[in-house]
């Protein structure tokens, strides 16, 4: 399975954070990952979390920037634009773990836990730290089994927006029955919420 994992924070849109740009490195990694994923393919299958906390199905930009629809889909389209790649997008809106659609390249939207600091969206929950470690290890090790078996209830409590889409990526890996070359390109929690960028090829 060939895939890229990127977050869906609105801050990936440069103008949303005002004059400062606290996620410049994250954006660069996400753009690079999308560009690599799109190499040699004409379509991307995009797994977009919706209808869960942190992944609104309709998102109007607070800054007044034009656009509406699922936050995750808007972020995906924005990253594809920034990557400057010419691909068609087959967008799959994901509100629960479902069958993995066919497609040679998966763009997987999702964040880790949101409970890692006093200012985090979900405040502090000590369980967030090992949970993010587990996701990071799975992304870094190409471990489809670990992602497919994510504890969905705990992930929901920790506000993991990628809980469904990561599990679907894991299932796609298991059904492909081939090893992947996996790289975790970015992992940090600048606002108490973990962002990952990973590439599987």
């Amino acid at each position, binding site marked *: 399975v060939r895939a890229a994992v990127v977050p869906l924070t609105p801050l990936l849109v440069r103008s949303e954070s005002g004059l400062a740009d606290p996620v410049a490195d994250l954006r660069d990694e996400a753009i690079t990952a999308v560009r690599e994923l799109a190499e040699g393919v004409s379509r991307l299958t995009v797994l977009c979390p919706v209808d869960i906390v942190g992944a609104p199905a309709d998102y109007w930009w*607070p800054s007044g920037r034009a656009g509406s629809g699922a936050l995750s889909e808007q972020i995906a389209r924005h990253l594809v634009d920034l990557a400057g790649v010419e691909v068609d997008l087959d967008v799959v809106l994901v509100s629960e773990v479902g069958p993995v659609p066919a497609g040679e390249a998966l763009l997987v939207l999702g964040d880790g836990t949101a409970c890692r600091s006093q200012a985090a969206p979900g405040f502090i929950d000590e369980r967030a730290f090992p949970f993010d470690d587990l996701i990071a290890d799975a992304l870094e090790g190409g471990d489809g089994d670990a992602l497919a078996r994510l504890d969905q209830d705990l992930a929901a409590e920790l506000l993991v927006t990628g809980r469904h889409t990561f599990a679907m990526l894991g299932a796609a890996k298991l059904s492909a029955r081939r090893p992947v070359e996996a790289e975790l390109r970015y992992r940090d929690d600048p606002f108490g919420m973990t962002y990952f960028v990973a590439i599987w090829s």
Partner: protein
Amino acid sequence: MLRLGRQSFADDRLLVMAIVNRTRDSFYDQGATYAEDAALERVRQVVAEGADIVDIGGVKAGPGPEVSAYEELRVTAGFVARVRSEFPDLVISVDTWRAAVGRAVCQEGADLMNDAWGGHDPGLIEVAAEFGVAYCCTHTAGATPRQPPHRVTYRDVVRSAIDDTVALAERCVAAGVPRESVLIDPAHDFEKTTWHSLELTRRLDEMVATGWPVLVSLSNKDFVGETLDQPTQGRLTGTLAATAISAWHGARVYRAHQVVETRQVLDMVASIRGLRPPASSTRALA
């Protein structure tokens, strides 16, 4: 006429509501008036500085250690009684979302239920009606008390604030709260990004146009800090700028940490608008 419990105010009066926290961890004062005597001293100070209302709170708005209803009652009810006995005519507001706390403080002489969480506990409205006290309807878009906002979105934040607060205000009146005792508050920062709070300030005249008296709570908040890149203690100038704009748009009540500065801004804006004569005007008039 705006009636807040035992006091009535003419429609052109702009009122300062001084914040008095009986909390260990509120973002601005960090527990400075958690002790009852310190809080009472703060009341004496803000009254001397010209506050029209004191707003007593027993629970920090943001996330943090849980404060039970019992603990909240313990720090507010007896304190309200003490303030009431020392200041028989002062308007006492209590910042709470819990009906049980509301009932206890009304029994001790509170005049206003400042429900910072937008009707989360519907029983609080019933308490206000039963005691004939005032009620402030805040816009929190259905947020759970003390949970921070996360990727919140509005098609039109001002429309949402107006629709929700006016609906809550009508619920208050239907429940028996006197119509002249109901305020609405767009609730800056509550379930909002900085962009949203700026837009609410910019378009506050639209809320004022509903006819309901508008309360604004701007004081040293994160939207000021983010806009000017200032830590908590560096936000007074930005707060006063937002205060001036809100006063220009016609807000009536200003919840504030700094009473003297807020009062001066309100007086200045009122004079610019032609609603208040200067304190003294002799320049070039001799």
